[in-house]
């Protein structure tokens, strides 16, 4: 798949594609990508288009629609799982019903905030273009995707905090959602650790370990130890605390493009 051909075709639809794209036009691009291109190329193409469209500092509306798209993704995922019979083990049904309830609340909250500017729910493909063929038959695959979605959610909200610093009320809402996603991620990860009998799969992220790797790496990988210019791994007062523990003590952000590259293959077709 030739990324430049995609951008060319975008230019033909909208001569201003290199600049900030209008909301409706952007959705059209997403549809074109979703319907006509090979899945393997989607993450890069999707990220490139969105990067062009959103520019360096996305508006509050764009951030909220970005968040809404991720919340749609999570809500749809849990909605389907919670309505399958004999799929989620009985001991975890409360956990996943609670998570679904929060994702529904987040969708409703963001839709309410955006009003007529809210994007519609996309069509999703939880097999990730065939990469997870047993997403709906193998609970381990399902819960692995769940952890990836929750950790991506945490990193996605964190990545937008700085862009909301001039909108304090919305920043606070975003933080209030952000910590809920982190609570979800913590328990889902611990359930995986329990099922796999892997004590190293903790509620927190050690170095940049995790699957799929894109969720834990990126421009600021989870293994990063430098924060506000200060390397937390070299603090004299931490004594013999291991580098693993130091990396666990901080979660890291993902950029919007990185998140969309991860989420892209889940999105079969953008809502209109």
């Amino acid at each position, binding site marked *: 798949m030739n990324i430049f051909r995609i951008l060319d075709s975008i230019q033909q639809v909208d001569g201003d594609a290199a600049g900030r794209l209008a909301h409706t036009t952007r959705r059209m691009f997403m549809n074109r990508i979703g319907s006509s291109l090979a899945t393997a190329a989607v993450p890069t193409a999707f990220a490139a288009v969105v990067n062009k469209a959103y520019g360096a500092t996305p508006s509050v509306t764009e951030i909220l629609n970005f968040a809404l798209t991720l919340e749609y993704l999570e809500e749809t995922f849990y909605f389907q799982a919670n309505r399958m019979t004999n799929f989620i083990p009985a001991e975890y049904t409360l956990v996943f019903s609670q998570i679904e309830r929060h994702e529904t609340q987040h969708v409703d909250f963001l839709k309410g905030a955006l009003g007529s500017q809210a994007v519609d729910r996309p069509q999703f493909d939880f097999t990730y273009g065939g990469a997870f063929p047993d997403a709906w038959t193998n609970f381990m695959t399902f819960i692995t995707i769940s952890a990836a979605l929750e950790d991506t959610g945490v990193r996605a909200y*964190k990545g937008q905090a*700085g862009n909301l*610093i001039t909108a304090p009320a919305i920043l606070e809402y975003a933080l209030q959602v952000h910590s809920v996603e982190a*609570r979800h991620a913590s328990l889902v990860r611990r359930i995986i650790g329990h099922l796999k009998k892997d004590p190293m799969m903790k*509620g927190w992220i050690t170095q940049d370990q995790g699957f799929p790797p894109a969720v834990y790496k990126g421009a600021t990988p989870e293994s990063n130890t430098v924060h506000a*210019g200060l390397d*937390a791994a070299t*603090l004299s007062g931490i004594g013999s*605390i291991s580098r693993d523990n130091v990396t*666990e003590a901080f979660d890291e952000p993902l950029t919007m493009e990185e998140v969309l590259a991860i989420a892209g293959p889940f999105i079969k077709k953008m809502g209109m």
Partner: protein
Amino acid sequence: MKKTLTQPSEHPDSAMLARVDRRYFLRSAGVAAATGAFILGACTEQDLMSDDTVDLGEGDFGILNYAYALEQLEAAFYTQVMMTPYLNMTDMEKWILTDIRDHEIVHREFFKTALGSKAIKGLTPNFSAIDFADRRSVLGAAKLFEDTGVAAYNGAGKLIKDVNYLLVAGKIVSVEARHASAIADLINPNALEFAGGQINNMGLENAFSPSVILSGVQPFVMDKISGKNLPR
């Protein structure tokens, strides 16, 4: 609950005076004598300079000191938990509580170093209400501290001016939320509480202002903490 010195100062002049020369202000106002804060004679000049209230300061450094105070409290708590483990602590509980202790120490030392000469002193915790031999008491306190920490960072985010500090706060708050979830799940496994009562019906977790948080944690600290100069 102990009375705190965190009431918002409605009088800008007194707040300014307090900042300019707190000792002078207190003396001239006769407050020192009235509260018995200064027993002269045995006091050195150093003692007089630092009355028994720890002021967090103002601006972003004030918020960082606020976070530093909370991390000091958490680090001290988990250090004590692992020094005197409660009866029948399981291996899993030991791993989790040791990890959390280490994370909180890293947070504490990070803020201490970042603040440098602006850092408040090391606080003296008051854990007399916690029975460290009792699992329920320890995990209950841990849940309280973690939930409080998350609500504190959630509420302080919008008070931060420097985008780099905001990002650091964001990096830490989600780890506190991961702790909160794990602790709640130790208390009541696979139940709703891992993400329960702290979250409203819009799916939003608590966000509390520093004044609310500080009055809540004051009983766990011997020193009096004042956030009267924090941004709001």
